[in-house]
Structures are given as structure tokens and as C-alpha cells.
């Protein structure tokens, strides 16, 4: 059925005027017909003429009024409604010029303008408030990230499926053999998970029994684990994450906290703060925090200490018992015959010697032990000097200079600085020495830390008295002597040339290498966490995984040439992890590969990799095995994937593992999004998504992988808009695109 209200306002008003004109003209014509036939048939021609004139005038008049009406009322109303509609959907576009267009509409224009203005204002205020809050939370996030980054404890947060949600730099250092640590990866690939599981079970029991409230350790337990990479012993704690722990009054209820012991899938399915089915006060366990430190050295030290103690007790008991027995007999029986006596004397001599040997051995073993318990660390002479100056303060009147080059020592820097501050202050106060030079030189197995000054040698008696004093800022009644004992060292003063004296303190050399080149620098704010993983669904089929939560490794290879089947080989492979649509820059894989053959100059020209660069690098089998470890269960993504996959699959036998998981190709995804005819090169896709390259890095595997990863992430929103939501969807459209491309290639 025809519906008039479907037509536009202006058309309807136009039709209304047309109706008036038509009816008017019809009435005039009907009137003219009656006059012409009944009143004045003689002048019918004139009547018709006048009537036609009136009809035309009427039609014209109506048309003119209709036009005016359209111009000043219908069109402004349409415009106004359009503008108001636009303002409603996008308040930021609110305009105040509406009043001008609607000047014949009475108060409607100004009222609409006022409404629109108020809406815009409210919108801007909301925006500003949101921006402020976001900025604030960004700031807090940055602080938290900085704290996590610099924390010297290894920190790992997992959900109850033991997938890693967060790890810090120390965790990467301690647990991360290349590629093994990563967001969403399983904890059991890094450490033995059984102690953690056991601790979590115990904590659940503690939670359900309500004992945790009065427990000193709350919801945490100590654990000792072994790392997978290099048999390290790790000690630390497991603590449950419960954003909403059960309330006090729920403790007695039998069905209260106990239901948190349910199946992990039930618990992990929930996002933090999104627990619709839960009553208040019945918190869910979202995951657990694992803090660890390397206890390998400490445990070894402890074991060595125990060994020395045991050897001391066992090993000294026997000779001393033998000595005592022989001496007692000799003492009691002084009239013993000479030959019997000499037997006992032999025992005395032999056991005495054995006792001595044992003691010498034990002393050596004791001195070998690194002192445990004290915060021993590597520190430079420069650092010690700065700390000493800082400790003495500007008003002390004592100048500390550093002499010689920078040397690294291993010590409890706090204790050593306090000790030096004490001695320097004494020398200043009693001898008036106001300038010291701090330096260190190698002497045998030790670094000799020297404080040199102009003046006489410090007498041993005074040094000894000063060393017996308690340290100012040290915990407990610690003296300088104690600090020396922990370092197994002994200072002394001696002459140091013309009128100079020095205090020498032998200290162990640095443990780590402190050369100019330090370990590989990590990005300042690595994306080492993703709390969205707390609520990660366990998808029964990988095809059901939404692209937005996909764990993928975007990779690229550089090769000796284009034909793997004709003997071309990989020379470089690099990959980056993409988690939840984010490129995780802290988790990358970048390795050169020795292709076992010459790299043609034409290929070197493209990727810049020469025979010399790959000499001594791992073979494809070894490197790709590491890459397979890095990949884990993630999905592979590459630009023009068939090329790279051909090389990977050709090496599967040498790798001993199959690259048989799903693979996404950014070329095919681009073909689906932008049509087969579009340009799908990495350069043009980068330009399309406004992704910049670092100058000169293009065609290294890592740079290309980075660009591909950025392109892949940028494609996710348009893919979702086009209805490509899951990995299965993406694979299906890729297959279609590939089929079309194959068909096209035939022609």
C-alpha cells in the first residue's frame, strides 16, 4: 500500500499545494462552464477566456506560494532535522548557526541552537573528564610499569590455566631462555609447575576453611621450584589473586567461599569486575602471583656451609677422641714401659697431625664460601665515591676524589661506605685530614680498595679502636669489624710515598662483566602484560578463537634466493608476537642462519646478509627448532606466507618438528579487504595503514616482520567490520582469495 508518510516533507508539502491548485482550477472551470451554458451562452467564448486566465493566475499564484513555503519553511525544517540528527549522533559537531536558517520558523531555530549548544558543551565536558581520568590512569600505569620493570624479584602473574598474563624483566632474564617466556604461554614451559599447583590447592583449602584471615601469610605460600632452562633452583611465593575476597560474615556459611574451589574453567571464564552470577562477598580466584628469586647460589652456599659444619663435627671428633684417650693413658700411667709408651706417643703425633690437616682444609673451604645473607653486589669505585660523598654530606668539609680508572668490586656497598665514612670522619676530626683519594688496583685475586691522604700512617691501635665502633646507620649492633668479617677481609694503613699514607682494604673483584657493552637492552616500557588474558576463554576449536584475542607470531625469512626446491636456503628468520591485537615488542625472535652454502651477491644486495655474517651461526635445523619453541601453539602470520612456509616445511625433517598449525597471509587478507586488483605489497599496505619504516631497515627479517605485524593489527578492525571475526572466518576468506588468485594466474 502506498504510504504518504514515506515521502519527504518537502514533496508532501509540494503535493499539498498542487492539490490546492488543482481543486482551485477545477472550481474555476466548473464555474465558467455553468456561466457559459446557463447565464450567458452568447458570450461563452469570453467566459472561457476569462476563466482560463483566472485558472492560470491561480495555478501560478499557488506555485509561487508553494515555492516560498518550500524555501522558507519546508527546506529549513528538513535541514534543521538533519542538523539535529547529526548533533545527536556526534555532539562534537554541534553548531550554533541553526537559528539563521530557521528564521521563519518562529522560536524553533533558537531553541534547537540552544539545545545543540548545551549538548555540545556537555559532550566537551565529558570528553575532558574522560581525558583527565585516562591521563591519570596512564600516569599510574607508567609508574607501575616502571616499578615492575626495575623490580629485582622475578614476577610472573598467571591465570588459573597457568597462562602467563604478566612478567617483568627479571623474569625474562631468569626464566627466559630465548623465546620461551611470553604472554599467554604456559608456566610449565618455564618451571616445574607441580609445587605451584600444590601450593594453590593448599591455598584453596585455606580459603574455603576461612583460616586465611588469621593466617600470617594470608593467601600466599612459599614455594621452591626448578627452572626448565638451566637447572636453577628458584625460591619464592605463590599468592592467589582475588580482587574481591570473601567478606567477613561469609566465613561461617558452608556454601560461601567454598564454591571458589570449583572447576578452573568456571573461574577463568570471568573477567575481573565482571562477575554477574556472584553474590557480593563471594570472590573468585582470578589467578596467582608468583615471585621468585634465584636461590641456586644461595642453596649451594648453604649446602657448602652445612658440609663444612658436618665435616667439622664428624671429622674432628675422631682425632680428638684418639688424642684424648692416648694422652689420658700417658698421664695416668707415668711408669709405663718405654716401648709401650712410644706407641702412645706415635698416636699423639699422628692424630695431632691429622687434626691439623683437617683444620687447614676446613679453613680453606670456609674462606672459599661467598658470604651469604648480606646484600653483596657489584659496585664501581665511582659509585662508592659518590655514595661516600653523599653519606658525608656537603657540610663535612671532607673532599673525596676518585683516582685511577673505574674499577668494579663485589661487596656490601652499604657496609663498605659506612665503614669508609667512619674512618674518614675519624681521620678528619683527629688528624685534620680533609682530602682523600679513592682508587682500586688489582692485587692477586683481590681488588685493593685504597683511601690515600697526605699525612702520617694510621696507627694500628687507633684503626683497631675505630673498627670496634658500631656503624651509624646499620641494622642491629653491627660494627665495622662485622662488616670486615662478612667480607673476610682486613684493612691496614701503610705509607704511600712522600708524606702520604693510605688505608688498604682488599675486596673481591666484581662477579659480572662490567665492560662497556651490557646485556641486550630491553625496550624501556615493554608490553609484558595483558590482563585481558585473565578472562580468556578456552576455545575448544582454534578456529573459534576471535581474531581480536588471537596469539600469533608474525614472521619473515630472508633467503639465498627464491627457489627452495632448487637449493635456496634460509639465512635469517625473525618473528614478533601479537597478542590480543597488540604487537608485543619485548618478545621477539631474530636469528641469522648458516645456510651451508654461498649467498649470491644479488641476494646480499637485497637483505645485506653476507657469508661472513652467517659464518658460525646455527644451522637451519637448530635455529628453526628454537623458532618452533618460540612459536609454541600460536598461529603463524606472514606476508606472502606460501613463500616463507615453503622454506620452513622443507626443513621440517631437520627441525624434527612440524609447522602444521594454521597460517594467515596478510596478502590474502588484503585481497579480501581491498579487492584482488589492489596493490598488496608490504610497502603499499604500510602506506595504506600509515605505518612508517625505520630508514634503512627494510628487508631485514625483523623489520619486515614488524611491518607485517603492524599491518596485521591494523587489518583487524576492518576485517571485523567486514564480518571476519574468528580465525576460522579469516582462514575461510583467505582460501577464497587464494582460489581466485590461482584462477587469475592461469590466464
Amino acid at each position, binding site marked *: 500500500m502506498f504510504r504518504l508518510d514515506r515521502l519527504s516533507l518537502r514533496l508532501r508539502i509540494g503535493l499539498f499545494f498542487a492539490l490546492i491548485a488543482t481543486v482551485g482550477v477545477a472550481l474555476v472551470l466548473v464555474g465558467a462552464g455553468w456561466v457559459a451554458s446557463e447565464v450567458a451562452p452568447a458570450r461563452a467564448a469570453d467566459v472561457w477566456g476569462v476563466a482560463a486566465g483566472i485558472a492560470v493566475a491561480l495555478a501560478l499564484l499557488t506555485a509561487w506560494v508553494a515555492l516560498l513555503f518550500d524555501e522558507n519553511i519546508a527546506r529549513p525544517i528538513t535541514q534543521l532535522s538533519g542538523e539535529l540528527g547529526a548533533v545527536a549522533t556526534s555532539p562534537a559537531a554541534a553548531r550554533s548557526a541553526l537559528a539563521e536558517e530557521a528564521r521563519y520558523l518562529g522560536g524553533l531555530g533558537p531553541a534547537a541552537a540552544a539545545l545543540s549548544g548545551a549538548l555540545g558543551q556537555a559532550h566537551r565536558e565529558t570528553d575532558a573528564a574522560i581525558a583527565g581520568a585516562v591521563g591519570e590512569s596512564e600516569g599510574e600505569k607508567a609508574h607501575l610499569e616502571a616499578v615492575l620493570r626495575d623490580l629485582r624479584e622475578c614476577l610472573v602473574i598467571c591465570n588459573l590455566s597457568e597462562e602467563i598474563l604478566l612478567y617483568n624483566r627479571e623474569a625474562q632474564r631468569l626464566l627466559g631462555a630465548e623465546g620461551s617466556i611470553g604472554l599467554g604461554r604456559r608456566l610449565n614451559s618455564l618451571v616445574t609447575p607441580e609445587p605451584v599447583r600444590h601450593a594453590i590447592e593448599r591455598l584453596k583449602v585455606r580459603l574455603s576453611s576461612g583460616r586465611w584471615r588469621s593466617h600470617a601469610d594470608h593467601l600466599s605460600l612459599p614455594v621452591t621450584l626448578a627452572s626448565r632452562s638451566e637447572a636453577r633452583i628458584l625460591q619464592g611465593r605463590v599468592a592467589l589473586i582475588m580482587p574481591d575476597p570473601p567478606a567477613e560474615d561469609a566465613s561461617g556459611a558452608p556454601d560461601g567461599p567454598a564454591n571458589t574451589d570449583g572447576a578452573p574453567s568456571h573461574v577463568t571464564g570471568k573477567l575481573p569486575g565482571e562477575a554477574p552470577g556472584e553474590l557480593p562477598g563471594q570472590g573468585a580466584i582470578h589467578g596467582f602471583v608468583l615471585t621468585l628469586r634465584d636461590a641456586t647460589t644461595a642453596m649451594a652456599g648453604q649446602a657448602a656451609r652445612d658440609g663444612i659444619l658436618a665435616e667439622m663435627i664428624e671429622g674432628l671428633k675422631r682425632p680428638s677422641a684418639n688424642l684424648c684417650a692416648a694422652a689420658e693413658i700417658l698421664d695416668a700411667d707415668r711408669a709405663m714401659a718405654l716401648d709401650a709408651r712410644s706407641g702412645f706417643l706415635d698416636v699423639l703425633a699422628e692424630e695431632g*697431625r691429622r*687434626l*691439623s690437616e683437617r*683444620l*687447614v682444609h676446613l*679453613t680453606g673451604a*670456609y*674462606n672459599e664460601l661467598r658470604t651469604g645473607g648480606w646484600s653483596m653486589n657489584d659496585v664501581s669505585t665511582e659509585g662508592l665515591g659518590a655514595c661516600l660523598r653523599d653519606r658525608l654530606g656537603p657540610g663535612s668539609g671532607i673532599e673525596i676524589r676518585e683516582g685511577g680508572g673505574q674499577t668494579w668490586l663485589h661487596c656490601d656497598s652499604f657496609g663498605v661506605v659506612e665503614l669508609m665514612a667512619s674512618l674518614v670522619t675519624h681521620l678528619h676530626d683527629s688528624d685534620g685530614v680533609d682530602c682523600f683519594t679513592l682508587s682500586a688496583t688489582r692485587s*692477586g685475586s*683481590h681488588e685493593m680498595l685504597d683511601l690515600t691522604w697526605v699525612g702520617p*700512617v694510621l*696507627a*694500628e*691501635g687507633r684503626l*683497631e679502636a675505630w673498627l670496634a665502633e658500631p656503624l651509624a646507620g646499620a641494622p642491629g649492633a653491627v660494627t665495622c669489624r662485622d662488616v670486615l668479617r662478612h667480607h*673476610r*677481609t*682486613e*684493612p*691496614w694503613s*701503610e705509607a704511600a710515598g712522600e708524606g702520604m699514607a693510605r688505608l*688498604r682494604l*682488599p675486596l673481591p673483584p666484581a662477579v659480572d662483566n662490567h665492560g662497556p657493552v651490557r646485556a641486550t637492552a630491553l625496550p624501556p616500557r615493554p608490553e609484558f602484560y595483558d590482563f585481558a588474558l585473565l578472562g580468556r576463554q578456552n576455545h575448544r576449536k582454534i578456529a573459534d578463537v576471535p581474531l581480536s584475542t588471537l596469539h600469533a607470531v608474525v614472521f619473515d625469512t630472508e633467503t639465498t634466493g627464491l627457489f627452495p626446491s632448487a637449493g635456496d636456503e634460509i639465512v635469517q628468520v625473525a618473528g614478533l608476537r601479537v597478542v590480543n591485537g597488540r604487537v608485543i615488542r619485548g618478545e621477539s625472535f631474530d636469528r641469522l642462519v648458516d645456510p651451508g652454502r654461498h649467498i649470491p651477491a644479488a641476494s646480499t644486495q637485497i637483505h645485506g646478509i653476507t657469508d661472513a655474517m652467517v659464518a658460525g651461526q646455527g644451522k637451519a635445523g637448530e635455529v628453526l627448532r628454537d623458532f618452533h619453541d618460540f612459536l609454541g601453539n600460536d598461529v603463524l602470520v606472514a606476508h606472502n606466507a606460501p613463500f616463507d612456509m615453503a622454506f620452513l616445511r622443507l626443513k621440517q625433517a631437520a627441525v624434527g618438528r612440524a609447522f602444521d598449525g594454521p597460517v594467515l597471509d596478510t596478502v590474502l587478507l588484503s585481497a579480501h579487504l581491498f579487492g584482488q586488483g589492489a596493490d598488496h605489497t608490504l610497502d603499499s599496505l604500510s602506506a595504506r595503514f600509515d605505518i612508517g619504516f625505520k630508514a634503512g631497515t627494510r628487508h631485514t627479517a625483523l623489520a619486515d616482520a614488524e611491518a607485517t605485524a603492524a599491518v596485521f593489527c591494523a587489518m583487524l578492525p576492518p576485517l571485523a567490520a567486514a564480518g571476519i571475526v574468528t580465525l576460522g572466518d579469516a582462514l575461510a576468506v583467505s582460501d577464497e582469495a587464494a582460489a581466485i588468485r590461482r584462477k587469475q594466474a592461469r590466464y
Partner: protein
Amino acid sequence: MQPSILLVDDEPNIALSLKYVMTRDGYDVRCAEDGERALECIRERKPDLVLLDLMMPKRDGFDVCQTLRADPSFSDVKILMMTARGGAMDGEKALALGADAFFTKPFGVQELSVRVRELLGERDVPA
């Protein structure tokens, strides 16, 4: 004239053995039981060698050693230091302060006797 030795040790049991051996080896042996008494004895009559224990009451062995070496008139006195302390750096410090030899207890008495003879022999050669 027989060389003279000053034995400085506060532990009578080891002093007994050392005095016996040194006397047997033909030295003129005197004894002191702490650092202060030792310096008095040395100033009374300069010995050729001091057998000096490290850990003693009043003034310890390092102190005595440093004091002796600070006085040029005693520069020809040989100093042999001994200790039962376990510190790895004690020996280095003793030599730095001017001791001629350092023994860690327990040691063989015979070994010590040999070293004393060597030290006194060194002294005799230039004389």
C-alpha cells in the same frame, strides 16, 4: 754469641712448646704474654727475631709489628707472625705491615724451627 728470640704469645700451652724448641735449637729465648710487655722487652734489649702471635690482649700483633717497623733502630729485627685466625687477608696484611714471615696455626713445630733458622741466617749473611 747465640741469637736472641722474643716469643710473644698469650697462650701458655703453645708458648711451652715453642720455648722448648727454640731453646733446644740454641737460641736465647725470652717470653712476653701481651703486646705491651713485648714492646717493653724489645726496648730493654733488642732481640734478633720476634715470634709474634696476632691475637693478644692490650696491643695485638699487627700493632706491635707496625710500631717496631716505624722505628728505624729496629729495622734489623726479624718478625715472624703467627695466628689461629681464619682470615684469608691476615697474611697479606702482616707482610704489608713489615713482617718477614707469616704462619697460620696449626703448624708443625719443626717447620717453624726451619723458617726461624732461615730468617736468622739471612740476617747473618750481610753482617
